């Protein structure tokens, strides 16, 4: 989708706050939301790409103006409502009007210790041979899916080079619809001269991780 989240290369956002204090959370509610999300029960048909897509779909004004973890809270509220587990009234008041869904019990404090350093990976075996080889020139697709995708607008149609191959990873466009297909994943390196009309640093590059469906022969 051509969403507000797809920010690479956009102009007008101003300076970066380089003097931000180094603590991990700047307000107790941030740590609370992050931790609630880690600990809560999840629907079996939720996954990382569905969450990302639900965050991308926040009203664009809210996306650009609300604090980060506040957006997480609203995204999970939207997911709960969408899955039929809560109503708008319930998430607004914090009071339940009916029993919760039939689910395994949520994470206990004991479970947290094992989950802190999770090594979850998203690659999987695949039978098909990779379509591209290291060093090969490829062009990023110009097709624009209406749903979730991980090919940023700024790379669409641009010519790059295969710099690395990472085996097969779950394809995010499908995963956001709860369809588990794996595709070969590559690092594709683009020269900045190819990406940006004003670029002058000929040796600088931008590398993206792109799935095979995002690529075509030049």
């Amino acid at each position, binding site marked *: *989708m051509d969403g507000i989240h*797809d920010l*690479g*290369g*956009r102009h007008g*956002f101003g*300076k*970066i*706050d*380089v003097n931000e204090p180094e603590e*991990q*959370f700047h307000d*107790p509610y941030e740590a609370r*939301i*992050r931790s*609630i999300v880690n*600990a*809560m*029960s999840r629907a079996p048909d939720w996954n*990382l790409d569905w969450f990302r*897509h639900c965050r*991308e*779909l926040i*009203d664009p004004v*809210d996306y650009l103006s609300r604090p*980060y*973890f*506040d957006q997480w*809270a609203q995204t999970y*509220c*939207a997911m709960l*409502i969408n899955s039929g587990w*809560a109503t*708008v009234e319930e*998430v*607004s*008041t914090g*009071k339940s009007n009916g029993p*919760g869904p039939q689910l395994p019990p*949520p994470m*206990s404090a004991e*479970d*947290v210790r094992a989950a*802190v350093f999770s*090594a979850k990976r*998203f690659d999987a075996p695949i039978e098909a041979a990779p379509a591209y080889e290291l060093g090969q020139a490829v062009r990023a697709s110009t097709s624009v899916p209406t749903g979730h995708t*991980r*090919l*940023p607008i*700024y790379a669409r149609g641009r010519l790059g080079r295969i710099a690395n191959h990472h085996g097969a*990873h*779950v394809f995010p466009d499908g995963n956001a*619809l709860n369809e588990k297909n794996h595709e070969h*994943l590559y690092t594709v390196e683009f020269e900045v001269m190819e*990406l940006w009309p004003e670029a002058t*640093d000929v040796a*600088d*590059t*931008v590398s*993206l991780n792109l799935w095979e469906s995002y690529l075509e022969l030049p």
Partner: protein
Amino acid sequence: MTKHDSHAIADVHHELHSHLPPEPALRAKALESLLVEKGMVDSAAVDAWIEAYSEQIGPKNGARIIARSWVDAEFRARLLADASEAITDLELQQGHLIAIENTAELHNLVVCTLCSCYPMGLLGMAPTWYKTAAYRSRSVREPRVVLDEFGVGLSADIRIKVWDSTAELRYMVIPQRPAGTDGWDEEKLAELVTRNSMIGTERDLSKYVGAQS
């Protein structure tokens, strides 16, 4: 049943825009109260996560890896070849990790333009600036200007590689070992390694050497 439908979610967000409590802290409280009432979250587990964030999760984990890579050439080679495998010896984990090294001619900078992907297991919470529209939009387009803002003035002969984290691979920059640290042990070296140097928004760590020696 979840309806994996973009329009349905956008509609819910529009409704929530005008219904949720007015402050982030109140919205968080409402969400937690509701989940507890519905048996979908155990507040003791939430507290345990908060404790883990304050005690176990943070950039010290990444710094240990960098310090080891500075003193152990064999480890460094393994880290560059397969970082996930290399760090299991340190009892650290970070899903699918890629380590990228700065050199005298090359500087690496990590960003996630589409959301906020970050090697949390090794660096802790991403700084707020990493998640802002300003950093996400500008890092891929004018990295030298961004680095200038962070006080990293790169001469024109140093190449920049920007890494946009668009998949479930997480990048960690290996900064250069500063001069004047010969003979230092790993623990002392790790004290020099900053969070920003592992993201690529800091380059020269020599200014911390005096404070340690």
